[in-house]
């Protein structure tokens, strides 16, 4: 796309119009988007086209100064602030709220010349693994419209998989980029904690949240990471670590890309191949590991013994931090607001929050408040932070032992039907068992499509040491190269065939039907 824009064979306006047309054709059946800013997108595209004309006139150097995302349409998970556009974080409590400022990454994307098309659906406040916990209705998986796209960034994953936009931004607190990328058959990268500024991004769990890219391929993901990464003084946790310019120089040639595998040491953590894992997923991930080994990588078994404690640790730390972060929704300064008749502010808070938040958010606020309450802090939150030390030490040990990256499944299963895990929060939480430990340790990890099981996409997860995004993306590019002729790469999401049909039910209608047939 970048090359076509530079050559002038396509304009940014044409790309934006194609994206808007694709959204209006199929998003009734997918519901990936919560807000589409057609006017803003076309104006940004026209500005990008003017800059392209000027750059072309300036010759080679002018064009070289443009970011690869210049003129490219993209979407943002609906918790990234864009001045004047809605920003609900998937919650009714933020309905009608329009941020008076841009997030840091929004500014960065504008500077890069990217075209922001709109805002994408998500589980409420990013709490969920299926996007069914959105306050505005679920999103469908383009591979099977009766199934979830994963979550919490289900909207961004579905929009990219459906071809609405080539790239999108999500956030990953416990797997919310990698898991939906896996379930929708695309690339998703969670960067190292501190790599991308969170200024202007609605907070969930502040010691875990990170912002990252979704893309159809590894090079696009690298370009989007490059555009948003780096130190921002308005987020004190964003780290003063240089962003490698080589992110924009990943090899296009399969031969060159595959050659980088020689001598790389990859670890297969045995605890990630757990009972309860779907056999088709295990087969695809083991086949991918074998292909990496055949291409020259040294693949060895490793152990991360505290993996099994990740789930309980995460579901103490994340709700505890969320209960504090979500205390700000008081109905006074913005968003949903209710007033009782008694003129008592405690009653007003309870009405506003009781009605404004959805079931999963209330569940987590309750869990977190309890875990932090007097008498329980040591037993829960402090204990979880100590176990967190052990989980991080497992990873540190593996990398200190010479492992360049760990190879694991992203999700123990493929996309599941709407409603299948809604009645049992613990079953929903368990679907993140392979992604949560990475967040607990603050590490970067990428999910790559690695085949199909029962016709649905499977994700391969590569986990690296802190600040190793470039290495992970190079490995990802190498894996793409050695599997470039695999039959599954030519498969397209079958749900798209009927998504444009106006008689196709919406995801909310499908979910209601499936809820009706379940006992």
């Amino acid at each position, binding site marked *: 796309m970048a090359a076509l824009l530079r050559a002038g064979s396509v304009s940014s306006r044409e790309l934006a119009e194609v994206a808007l047309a694709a959204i209006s054709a199929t998003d009734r059946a997918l519901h990936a988007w919560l807000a589409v800013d057609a006017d803003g997108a076309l104006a940004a595209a026209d500005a990008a086209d003017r800059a392209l004309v000027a750059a072309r006139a300036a010759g080679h150097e002018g064009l070289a100064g443009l970011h690869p995302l210049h003129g490219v349409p993209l979407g943002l998970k609906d918790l990234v602030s864009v001045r004047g556009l809605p920003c609900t974080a998937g919650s009714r409590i933020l309905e009608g709220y329009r941020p008076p400022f841009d997030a840091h990454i929004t500014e960065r994307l504008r500077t890069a010349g990217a075209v922001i098309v709109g805002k994408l659906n998500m589980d409420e406040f990013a709490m969920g693994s299926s996007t069914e916990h959105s306050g505005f209705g679920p999103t469908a998986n383009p591979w099977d419209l009766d199934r979830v796209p994963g979550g919490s960034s289900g909207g961004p994953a579905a929009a990219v998989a459906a071809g609405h936009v080539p790239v999108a931004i999500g956030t990953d607190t416990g797997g919310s980029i990698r898991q939906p990328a896996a379930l929708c058959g695309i690339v998703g990268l969670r960067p190292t904690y501190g790599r991308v500024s969170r200024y202007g991004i609605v907070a969930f769990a502040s010691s875990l949240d990170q912002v990252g890219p979704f893309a159809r391929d590894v090079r696009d993901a690298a370009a989007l990471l490059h555009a948003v990464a780096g130190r921002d003084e308005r987020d004190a946790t964003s780290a003063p670590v240089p962003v490698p310019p080589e992110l924009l120089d990943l090899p296009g040639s399969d031969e060159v890309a595959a050659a980088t595998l020689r001598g790389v040491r990859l670890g297969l953590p045995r605890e990630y191949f757990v009972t309860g894992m779907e056999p088709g997923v295990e087969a695809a991930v083991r086949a991918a590991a074998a292909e990496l080994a055949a291409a020259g990588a040294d693949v060895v078994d490793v152990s991360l013994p505290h993996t099994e404690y990740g789930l309980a640790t995460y579901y103490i730390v994340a709700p505890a931090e969320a209960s504090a972060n979500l205390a700000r929704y008081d109905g006074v300064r*913005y968003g949903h607001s209710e007033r009782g008749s008694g003129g008592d502010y405690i009653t007003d808070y309870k*009405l506003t929050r009781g009605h404004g938040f959805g079931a999963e958010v209330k569940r987590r606020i*309750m869990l977190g408040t309890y875990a932090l309450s007097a008498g329980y802090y040591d037993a829960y939150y402090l204990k979880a932070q100590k176990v967190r030390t052990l989980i991080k030490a497992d990873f540190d040990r593996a990398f200190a032992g010479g492992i360049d990256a760990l190879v694991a499944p992203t999700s123990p299963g493929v996309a599941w039907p709407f409603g299948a895990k809604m009645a049992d929060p613990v079953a929903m939480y368990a679907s993140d068992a392979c992604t949560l430990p990475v967040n607990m340790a603050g590490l970067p990890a990428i999910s790559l499509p690695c085949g199909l099981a029962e016709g649905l996409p499977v994700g391969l997860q590569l986990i690296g040491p802190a600040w190793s995004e470039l290495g992970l993306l190079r490995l990802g590019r190498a894996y793409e190269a050695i599997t470039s002729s695999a039959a599954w790469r030519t498969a397209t999401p079958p749900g798209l065939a009927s998504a444009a049909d106006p008689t196709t039910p919406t995801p909310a209608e499908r979910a209601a039907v499936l809820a009706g047939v379940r006992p």
Partner: protein
Amino acid sequence: MAALSRADVEHVAHLARLGLTEDELARLQTELNHILDQYAKLAELDTGSIPPTAQTIELENILRDDVPRPPIGSAEAMANAPEREDDLFVVPAILGG
């Protein structure tokens, strides 16, 4: 760890300033106890000598220069207010009288 009673659930809901219906309180009591049972797994680990991890990257306080910058105007800052009076947010009285 002790199971949560109905009164405990109501107390936590009050602390969290969540107005919950009878149905929600009953459902949350069951669900929270089920989730707390999963937490018991952590008791298997002896963490007596393990320091807690609150953040994962080795950064210490980074301060920025304290330079005045133009703020967003009060009109924009107030634009999302559910109820306002001029440049003030309207809230119930919190002091007696």
